[in-house]
């Protein structure tokens, strides 16, 4: 069959990827990008592709806790790193606080850019939990959204950061008592 012949001509490589705490073995061409392997080999289709040249940020995932454009990285380059995708944010059917904040603030409409913004915010808030709203707007400007006008995305992330700080302060208070 033609397909088998064609496949045999491909240069294939075995990759081991750590995605959302799970080890995945993938046999694929070395030229495949991280986002294509996540989406089409591992079938983690929550991460989206919007431009394939690193501008729109729809494909943002965390690689060793830092936001990365998964369209600009070969899957092979992510071996040995911890990769996190949008699928890691909820536990079963229960949404995480960042996801809930996006819903409460209407920070998404079509939802296509949303996984990218979520992972961008997840990485950023972990690094700078004390971020101001202006700093959040600065970071949000890294990605493109065509539906919301950004205001509610900024408000959602700021709302989540504020709530986390409040929860943290309450915890400290109760420990002191």
């Amino acid at each position, binding site marked *: 069959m033609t397909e088998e012949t064609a496949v045999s001509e491909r240069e294939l490589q075995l990759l081991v990827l750590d995605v959302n705490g799970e080890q995945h073995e993938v046999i694929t061409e070395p030229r495949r990008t991280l986002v294509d392997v996540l989406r*089409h080999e591992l079938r983690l289709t929550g991460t989206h592709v919007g*431009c394939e040249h690193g501008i729109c940020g729809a494909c943002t995932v965390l690689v060793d806790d830092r936001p990365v454009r998964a369209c600009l990285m070969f899957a092979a380059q992510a071996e040995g790193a911890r990769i996190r995708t949008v699928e890691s944010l909820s536990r079963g059917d229960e949404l995480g606080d960042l996801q809930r904040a996006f819903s409460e603030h209407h920070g998404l409409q079509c939802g296509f850019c949303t996984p990218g913004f979520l992972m961008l915010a997840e990485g950023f808030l972990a690094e700078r939990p004390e971020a101001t709203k202006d700093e959040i707007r600065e970071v949000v400007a890294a990605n493109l959204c065509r539906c919301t006008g950004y205001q509610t995305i900024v408000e959602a992330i700021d709302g989540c950061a504020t709530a986390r700080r409040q929860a943290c302060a309450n915890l400290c208070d109760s420990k002191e008592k």
Partner: protein
Amino acid sequence: MSRQKLVGRSVARREDPRLLSGRGRFVDDIALPGMLHAQFIRSTVAHGEIASVDLSAVRQVPGVMAAFTAEDLELGDITAQLGRPLSEFVPTAMPVLARDKVRFVGEPLAIVVARDAYAAEDGLEAARVTYTTLPPVTTEEAALAPGAPLVHAEAARNTLVDVSLFATDGIDEILASAPCVVHVETRTGRQNALPLETRGAVAHWDDREEQLVLHTCTQIPHQVRTVAARSLRLDERAVRVVAPDMGGGFGQKCVVGREEIAVAAAALRLRRPVKWIEDRKDALSASFLAREQHYRVRAAFDADGRILGLDADVVCDMGAYSCYPFTAGIEPLMASAEMPGVYKVPAYRVRGRAITTNKAPTGPYRGVSRPQYVMVVERLFERAARELGLDPVEIRRRNVITDFPYTGVNNITYDPGSYLESLNLCEQLVTAEGRHIGIGYSCFSERTGYGSAAFAQRKMQVVPGFDISEVRMDTSGAVTVTTGTMSHGQSHETTMAQIVADELGVDIAKVRLHQGDTDRITYGFGTFASRSITIGGSAVRLAAAKLGDKLRAIAAARWDIDPDEVELTDGVARRRDDASDALTYEEIADIAYLQAHLLPKDIEPGLSAAATFDVFNDGTFSNATHGVVVELHEGTGQVEILRYVCVEDCGVAINPQVVEGQCRGGIAQGIAGALFEQVTYDDQGEPSATSFMDYKVPTAHEIPDVLIHHLQTPSAFTETGAKGAGEGGTIGAPAAVLNAVNDALRATGVELDNTPVTPETVHRALHLEATS
């Protein structure tokens, strides 16, 4: 006591949990066993005859399974029609794959199908296509020049549409004798609607159903089905179109794409699933574009600033093809019909033209012409205010329609709105201080309930207008609603469910909307022109009401009372005179389905109802006033928006948070058109903005927070009192921003009327002030 009504409340979106968890199902998320991947060999020249297409090397590329030209597939053309004489409209065929001639860079002329998308791309590189090049026509001037090369041989002077309308008696005298006549000439940049998800489709043949199943991201599934069936020469029954979750559309996905038909043809031929996902470069250069228009407009005013007449010439550069179903008339006919807008214009004359050039074709884009003509009209009012020494808000106050219904010079009857109230309120909310500060306003209304009558007036041969809904209840009391509209970000799963939950008195969690699947509903016209809640939502409410009647009838028969004596609340049918007699919906459904022998003879088993809705008059108009404060930066020419106020009236807001989302997102796209985005070509017709480095989509840096205030003038013509809310933001923003920029430039004497207003233009204008 019954539950509080859900309509009018910001109910949490039903769409959110799956979209936030990465569990949406977009077209590229679909994977079928044995699926192949397609890409298109596209023209590298803007205008030429195809001398040869040699795909033999393509077929040798590892992983490539097949490659087809137009001759291989023998597909029917896509031809959009208007019922107008040839002097007003020239129909032109759009072949699915280019045959003899190519008309723009990026035009598809062959499809390559491969094992994966990477191999398909490899295949493209091996294609050998030769052309006999023809001189390209890339501008309006070149297109209309005597002896210009013809893009379509049948369209003389490269003109596809040419209509002259209204021409009120005496308009020339009015313009000759009025105390104040102002003139505006405006050119607006070509734009891309730019849904963040590019176009794409997955097609496969289903042997058991004897159906071609086409998953495609479209706003108009039924129209795609009609065209696919005709082009592939199948019975329409044998095509099922399914629109999955969609990453925006904004009009670009509201036309039938050639690629989606070609993908279907390849899947039929190969009897294997075939997927095509458009890459961003193709999306920027070879999809459907919009908004390249040229206005020359004069307006006459009396000494008190009352408008006396409007005389307009509109030329829209529609690129290489007429889009289906709207035709190349979409932009000029919209502008011509609606231009007088919110103002009492006593005399009006317009010539509207669509020209064809060697650029990617034009389709609808959010607002369709209204962002442009509103900008022109609002510039005219600002200019008249300056000439007459009037306050720019005051001159509008003297001219906006205040007595409704109002039948305009354009033969359109405007239903009640809050034109004056929104203007006054917006003025109060806009405050500003600083250097190079400018304030700008725009006042506009937006027809949102385009029924069959309104589109028939345009003489479209496919007349979108009505929509159908079916509402059914199962034995668990859960409700399934189908609609012919197709949400692609507008939250219909939530808002339509709110309408049904209120009408039937059921928990919203029990209501589920199904949309975008042609097998689930007879026909529909999809989502565009802010029609979904006005028309689709009305059909949904009527169908739910019919189902409610049936629930009441079954309960009434059990109690041997009149159905009017039964009320429906909280999932229970109760007797009005004796609340202790009650039947839950599950109990009624049990009778309707499982114990039908208990039904009286005149009631059929089952619980479902269908309804159709259409608007038979001029429809309903949303309205708004936008107010903007800008600051111009001397060093960079940057336009910074300091404050943005939107006072809007879309009648009953089904879900205020969703309406605000539509306003904000629309305003962002309007600002994008006013200040940033432009599709550019070189003089050979080569597109020069084919990445996000060159096509500047604004980010959170450029788009300001927007203060929104709601007014509410319910529509008498829709079943919910709602007017549409999808496009207003985009319509109002360019005018208000441009007026604010010009207000800030007042001291320079420079006036800017073209968009996008770039930093270079502003810098030059400010520098002129410094040197003078």
